[in-house]
C-alpha cells in the first residue's frame, strides 16, 4: 500500500528531463519523460491495485456464484458444480419476494422523484438568492443529516401510528425524504454554484420569472447534478434498514431490506433464497449506478468542495 510514494521516485532524480539542460549523452537510459514510471514501480502499482480490486469484487462475485448452487451446497468452496436456477425459481414463485420488490420500488420511486424535485428547488434558492432565513436553513440541512435514527424513531413511530400510516408505503416515503433531502439539497447547491449566474440574468432580461428561469434554463443544464441527486435518493431508500424494519410489519408489507432478513435469522438459514434474491436486488442497483457513476464524481465533488 505504500507504493504510492515510490511509484514516481525513479523519475524524480532524473535532472536530464528538465528541458533547460541538454541530457549528457553518456547516460541515455536515464531519460524518462515526466510522470513515467520504472517497470518495477509499474508492477508494484498494478499488484496493489489488483489486490484492492480483488478484495472489492470477490464478495459480490461469491454471492453470485452461491446463488447458482443448490441450497444444500451453499457453503461448498467449489465453483458451481450443479448449476441450477432453482433458487431463483423458488424465490420468485414461492415467497413474497415479488411483493417486497414492488413495495420497495414504489417507496423508492416516490422518494426519488419527490426528493429530487424539492431538493433541487431548495438548492437553487440557496445558491442564487440571499434571503432572510437562508443561513439557519443551511444549518438546519446540515444538522438534520446527523440526526440519529434513535432519537426520532419512537416519536415518528407514534406519529405515523396516529396518522394510520404504519405499514403504508407513504409513511416510509415521507420518512426517507427527511434522510435524503438534506444531503441532496447541499449537493444541488454545490452544483448550481458551478452554473454561471449570467445565465439567470439573461433569462430575467428576456422576461422569465424566477421559476421560469429555474425550470427552463437551469434544470436542463443541471441534469448531471440531478442524476446524482436522484441516484443518492434511490440508494438511500433502497438500502435503508432501521425504519423499514420498525415501521413495516406483516410479511406482505415488508420492503426488500426487511424481507431478506426473514430468509436468514435465528430460526432459519435459507442461504439459497437469500443469495438469489440478493442478486436480483443488487443487479438493477448496480446497473443504474453504472450509468450515473460518471456524474457521481463531478456531482459529489462539486457538492463537497463548494460546501
Amino acid at each position, binding site marked *: 500500500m505504500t507504493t504510492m510514494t515510490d511509484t514516481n521516485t525513479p523519475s524524480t532524480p532524473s535532472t536530464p528531463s528538465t528541458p533547460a539542460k541538454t541530457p549528457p549523452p553518456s547516460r541515455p537510459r536515464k531519460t524518462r519523460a515526466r510522470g513515467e514510471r520504472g517497470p518495477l514501480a509499474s508492477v508494484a502499482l498494478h499488484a496493489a491495485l489488483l489486490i484492492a480490486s480483488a478484495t472489492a469484487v470477490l464478495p459480490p462475485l461469491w454471492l453470485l456464484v452461491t446463488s447458482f448452487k443448490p441450497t444444500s451446497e451453499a457453503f461448498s468452496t467449489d465453483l458451481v458444480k450443479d448449476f441450477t436456477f432453482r433458487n431463483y425459481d423458488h424465490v420468485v414463485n414461492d415467497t413474497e419476494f415479488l411483493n417486497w420488490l414492488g413495495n420497495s420500488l414504489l417507496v423508492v420511486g416516490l422518494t426519488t422523484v419527490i426528493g429530487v424535485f424539492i431538493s433541487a428547488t431548495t438548492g437553487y*434558492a440557496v445558491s442564487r438568492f440571499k434571503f432572510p432565513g437562508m443561513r439557519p436553513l443551511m444549518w438546519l440541512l446540515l444538522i438534520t443529516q446527523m440526526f440519529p435514527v434513535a432519537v426520532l424513531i419512537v416519536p415518528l413511530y407514534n406519529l405515523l401510528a396516529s396518522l394510520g400510516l404504519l405499514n403504508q408505503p407513504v409513511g416510509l416515503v415521507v420518512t426517507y425524504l427527511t434522510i435524503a433531502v438534506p444531503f441532496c439539497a447541499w449537493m444541488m447547491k454545490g452544483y448550481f454554484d458551478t452554473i454561471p449566474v449570467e445565465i439567470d440574468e439573461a433569462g430575467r432580461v428576456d422576461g422569465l420569472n*424566477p421559476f421560469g428561469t429555474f425550470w427552463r434554463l437551469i434544470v436542463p443544464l443541471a441534469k448531471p447534478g440531478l442524476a446524482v441527486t436522484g441516484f443518492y435518493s434511490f440508494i438511500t431508500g433502497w438500502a435503508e434498514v432501521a425504519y423499514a424494519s420498525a415501521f413495516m410489519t406483516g410479511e406482505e408489507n415488508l420492503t426488500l*431490506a426487511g424481507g431478506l432478513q426473514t430468509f436468514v435469522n435465528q430460526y432459519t438459514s435459507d442461504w439459497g433464497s437469500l443469495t438469489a434474491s440478493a442478486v436480483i436486488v443488487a443487479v438493477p442497483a448496480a446497473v443504474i449506478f453504472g450509468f450515473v457513476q460518471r456524474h457521481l464524481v463531478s456531482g459529489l465533488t462539486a457538492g463537497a468542495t463548494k460546501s
Partner: protein
Amino acid sequence: MAVDSSRSLAKAADAPGARGRGRRTGDTGKTPGRLRRSLSTHWYAWAMVAPVVAVIGVIIGYPLVRGLYLSTTDANEANVERTIGMNHIPATYKSVGLDNYTAVLSDGIFWDRLTWTIVWTVSCVAISFGLGLVLANMLNRKLAGRSLYRMALILPWAVPAFVSVFTWRLLFNEKNGILNKILAGGGIDAIPWLNDPTWAKLSVITVNVWLGVPFMLVAMLGGLQSIPGELYEAAEMDGANAWQRFRHITLPGLRTVSSTVILISGIWTFNMFPVIFLLTRGGPGDATEILVTYAYRLSFVVSPRDFAGSAAWGVIILALLSLFAVVYRRALRKQGEVW
C-alpha cells in the same frame, strides 16, 4: 455566488419588485413596510424552500420535540396510549424530570457503548480515508486498465449495503464460511468471526471499511483532478521529490474535500445502523452494539420496550454529534476555512 434577490429583481424590473419598492417609499411605518417588502422580494425564494422546510418541520421537528419530552418521562410499552381490540387505554406515564439522563450517564453500559462507538467511528473513518486516499493517488495517473480498476473498486458502493452485509455473513460463517475454509486449507483453526467479542469487532470494522472506501475514493479522485497540474510541474522544476510533492501540493489541495468528507462520513459511521444490526445484531452479548443500535434495541427489541430510555439515549447521541460538528467546524475555521 448568491445574488441578493432584491437587487437582481430590481435590475430585471420585475413587476412585484417594482411594486415592492414603490410601496416602501410610500410607507412611513417602518416595520410593516419592511416586512411586506421582504415578502414581495423574497416570496419566490421562500416558495422554493417551503416544501423542504415543511417536510423537515413535520417529520423531524415534531418527533424531535416529542422525543425530548418522552425522555423526561417513564414511558414504556406498558403505559403509553394504546388500543387493544375495542378498548382504548389512555397513557399513564408521568414526568420523571431528568432521572432518565442520570440513570443513563451513571450506568456503565453507556460508557462502554460510547467507548466502542468512538473506537468504531475513528478506526472506520481513518482506515477508509487512508485507503481511499492511497487508491485515488494510484488511479490518478496514466495507467493501463485504469477505468477497469475504477469500476472494480467502486463496486462495493454499487451493491446495496444490506446485500453486501448478508454476503459478508455468508463469508464469515464460522463452520462453513469460505474464509474459514481457506484458513483450514492453510492449517489454521477456524476463527469465530462473528461469535467472539474481539473478532466480531474486527469483522464489523472490516465490513464497514469495505463499504466506505469507494465513497472516499470517488471524492478524493474528484479532489485530485481539481488540483492544477502546473503546480506539480513547478514543484518538479524546483526539485521536489514525489513525497514532497504529495505532502506540499496534494494534501493541501485536498483539504477542503477531505474535511467535508471526513465530517460527513464520521457522522454516518457514528450512526451506522445497518452494518451492525444486520451483521451481528449487536452481539455477541452486546459487544458490537454502538449507541444507535443500543437505543434501537431499547425501544424495539427488549421487552417491555423502554421508550423513555431510548429517547434519552437518542438525545444524548444528538448532543454528542452536535458537539462534534461544532468543534470540527471551529477547528476548520481557525485554519482559515470560510463557511
